[in-house]
C-alpha cells in the first residue's frame, strides 16, 4: 500500500513542519526543563490554527480530515512530544467530544473559542480507583435544581492547568455502573471545581498534568453533553480516534530519535572510523527504520479509515500499540547508539527516551490495546 497524500495534506504537513522546526525546535529543551508550554507558544499555536484543526469551518476551525490532522501531530511530536499532547488533548479529546456529541447551542457557545485557542480544553475520565477500568469511576452527578451536582476526584488530567473547560465523566446512576455514566461540560469558573498542583513527570514534561476535584460543583443542565447514561460509550468512542493521535505522537518521537541516531552514527568516530561502519550499529539503524516504516503505515491507515467512516477500532488500537512499542524500541536504541552522550541532556535522544514511555500508557495501555484487538479479531 502506498500512501498518496493529497495536495492539501502535503500542504498542511509542510506548514506544520515549518512551524515546528522554526518555532518549537529551538525551545523544545527549554520547555522540557521549564515544565511548561510557554504562553508565547500557546498564543502562536492559537493564532496559526493548531487548536482548531478538526473543528468545522463554520465554527471557526480548519475542518481538516483525520489524516491531515495526524500528519500535523506527527510533525509537532517530532520536535516536542510535550507540546504535541497539549495540542492533541485539546483537539482529539475535548473538541472531538463536542464535534461528535454536542448540540447546536453547545457547539456555538464553545467551539469558536476553542478554535482560536482563546479557550483550552481538557478531558477528565481517569480517577484514583479507575484507570484501565474506566467504567468503574466513582465521581457522582446528582440531579438537582435543573442541573447536576458533581462530587469526586479526577486524576492525571492533561492540560488541567491551562484549561478553561473540561469534559468530565460522572456517574448519574451508580447502580447501573458503566451504563449509568454521563458526560458534562464543566467550565473552570464553575464553583466547586478545584485544580490541583502540577505533577512532576518522567517525560512529556512540557505538558501540564494535574488532579482536579469536584466538590458540590453545580453544572447547569444545558451543559450535559450527549445522552444521559451513555457517557461511557461516548468516552470510549472519543478515545478510539484519540489514540490514533497518540500513535502519531509515538511515530514522531521514533522518527526524531532515528534521524538523530543516523546523523550521530556517521559523525562519531571510534577506532579511526565512523561508528556507522560497524555492522552492529548498521543493523540497529536498519531495524529502527523498518519498524518506523511499518508503524507509519499502520498509523496513516487508521487515520484514513477513521476519516472514511469505516469501523476503525481494531486499526486504531493496532496502530497505537505498535507505534508506541516502536517508539520505545527506537528511543532505547538511539540512546545506545549515542553511548554516554545519549544519557546527557545536551543530546535530544535523552528526552526522546523519556518522552516515548508515556505512549504505551495513556489513552489505553498496551495491555488494554491488546484486549481491544483480541475482542475485535474474535468477533466472528
Amino acid at each position, binding site marked *: 500500500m502506498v500512501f498518496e497524500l493529497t495536495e492539501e495534506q502535503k500542504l498542511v504537513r509542510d*506548514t506544520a513542519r515549518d512551524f515546528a522546526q522554526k518555532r518549537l525546535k529551538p525551545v523544545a529543551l527549554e520547555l522540557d526543563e521549564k515544565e511548561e508550554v510557554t504562553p508565547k507558544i500557546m498564543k502562536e499555536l492559537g493564532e496559526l490554527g493548531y487548536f482548531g484543526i478538526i473543528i468545522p469551518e463554520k465554527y471557526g476551525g480548519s475542518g481538516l480530515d483525520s489524516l491531515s490532522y495526524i500528519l500535523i501531530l506527527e510533525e509537532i511530536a517530532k520536535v516536542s512530544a510535550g507540546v504535541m499532547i497539549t495540542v492533541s488533548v485539546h483537539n482529539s479529546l475535548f473538541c472531538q467530544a463536542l464535534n461528535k456529541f454536542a448540540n447546536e447551542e453547545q457547539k456555538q457557545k464553545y467551539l469558536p473559542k476553542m478554535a482560536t485557542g482563546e479557550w483550552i480544553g481538557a478531558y477528565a475520565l481517569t480517577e484514583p480507583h479507575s484507570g484501565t477500568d474506566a467504567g468503574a469511576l466513582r465521581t457522582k452527578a446528582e440531579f438537582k435544581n435543573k442541573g447536576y451536582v458533581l462530587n469526586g476526584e479526577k486524576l492525571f488530567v492533561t492540560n488541567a492547568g491551562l484549561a478553561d473547560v473540561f469534559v468530565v465523566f460522572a456517574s448519574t446512576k451508580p447502580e447501573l455502573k458503566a451504563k449509568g455514566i454521563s458526560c458534562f461540560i464543566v467550565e473552570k469558573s464553575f464553583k466547586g471545581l478545584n485544580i490541583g498542583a502540577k505533577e512532576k513527570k518522567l517525560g512529556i514534561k512540557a505538558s501540564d498534568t494535574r488532579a482536579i476535584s469536584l466538590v458540590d460543583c453545580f453544572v447547569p443542565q444545558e451543559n450535559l453533553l450527549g445522552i444521559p447514561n451513555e457517557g461511557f460509550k461516548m468516552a470510549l468512542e472519543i478515545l478510539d480516534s484519540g489514540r490514533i493521535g497518540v500513535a502519531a505522537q509515538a511515530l514522531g518521537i521514533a522518527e526524531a530519535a532515528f534521524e538523530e541516531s543516523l546523523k550521530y552514527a556517521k559523525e562519531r568516530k571510534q577506532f579511526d572510523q565512523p561508528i556507522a561502519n560497524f555492522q552492529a550499529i548498521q543493523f540497529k539503524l536498519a531495524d529502527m527504520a523498518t519498524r518506523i516504516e511499518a508503524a507509519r503505515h499502520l498509523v496513516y491507515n487508521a487515520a484514513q479509515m477513521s476519516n472514511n467512516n469505516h469501523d476503525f477500532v481494531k486499526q486504531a488500537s493496532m496502530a497505537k500499540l505498535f507505534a508506541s512499542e516502536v517508539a520505545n524500541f527506537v528511543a532505547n536504541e538511539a540512546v545506545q547508539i549515542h553511548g554516554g552522550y545519549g544519557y546527557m541532556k545536551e543530546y535530544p535522544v535523552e528526552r526522546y527516551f523519556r518522552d516515548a514511555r508515556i505512549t504505551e500508557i495513556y489513552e489505553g495501555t498496551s495491555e488494554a490495546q491488546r484486549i481491544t484487538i483480541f475482542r475485535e479479531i474474535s468477533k466472528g
Partner: protein
Amino acid sequence: MNIIICIKQVPDIGSIKVDPQAKKIIFPDSPGVLNPFDAYALEEALRIKEKRGGKVFGLSLGGPESEFCLREALSLGADEAVLLSDEKFKNLDAYLTSFVLAQGIKKIGDYYLILFGKQAVDGDSSLIPAEVAEWLDLPQVIFVKKFDELTDDMANVRRMTEDGYDTVEISLPAVISVVKEINEPRLPSLKGKMRAKSAKITVWNTQDLQVEENRLGENQKSAQIISVSPPPPRPKGEILEGSPEEIAEKLAAKLREAQVI
C-alpha cells in the same frame, strides 16, 4: 488605501555557484524561496493594515514560478496578488525592472505606501526601491528599521545608519525599504495556507501595462555586466599550538603585532 509590497522569489542562497568564465551566477534548480528581506516588509505591511485598515497587495515581477512567493504573501494575510509576467520581462536590468514594477504599481493605484525589503539576496543591488520611487516621482526612505508614526499622508521613520539611525519625516505616498531589525515575521496559519492555495493571482503582461515593446529592448538597459566573480576565498587561519598558557601568550603577541591591542 492600499499598501503595495514588492516581493521576489529568489534561489536558496546556500546552493548558488559562480561561473567566472561565463560571467554568470549559476542558480540551483530548486524551487526557491521568498526573498528573506521581503518577509520583513510583508510583515510590516500586515501590521500596518491590521491597525489602519485598507488592503495589502503583493506585487512580483517574474515567471510563473514567482506565483509561489505571492501565495506565501496571501497565506500570511495579503489581500491581493499581482504577477507581472511576460516573455519581454525576462533578463531585465534593475533600471528596466523598476520601470515595469512602477507601471504595475500605477495600475494597482490608490496606494499610500510602497514597501520593499532592503535588497534581494540574489542580485544584491538594493537599487530597485530607489528607482521605483524615481519612476513614480515619489519620496523614498531606504533601510527603515521602525515606523514611529504613520497617518494617511505622512510617516515618521527611523533610517538605519552605520552607527545609529536618522529620524526622517516623509510625506505619503512614498517608497520605503525596510531592514530585518524592523520586526519578527509571522508564520502562515493552516487556514491561511489553504486559502492561498486556491486564491486567484492576477497576471499582467506588457499589453495590460501598456508598455511598448521597444521600451524594454537591449539598448534601453542602463547597466552592463563587465565581470562576475566569486568572493575571494577566506585566507587560511592559523592554529596556535601549545599549552593553554603558551597559546594565550602567542595570541596576545599576534594581537599586539596586528595592533588590535
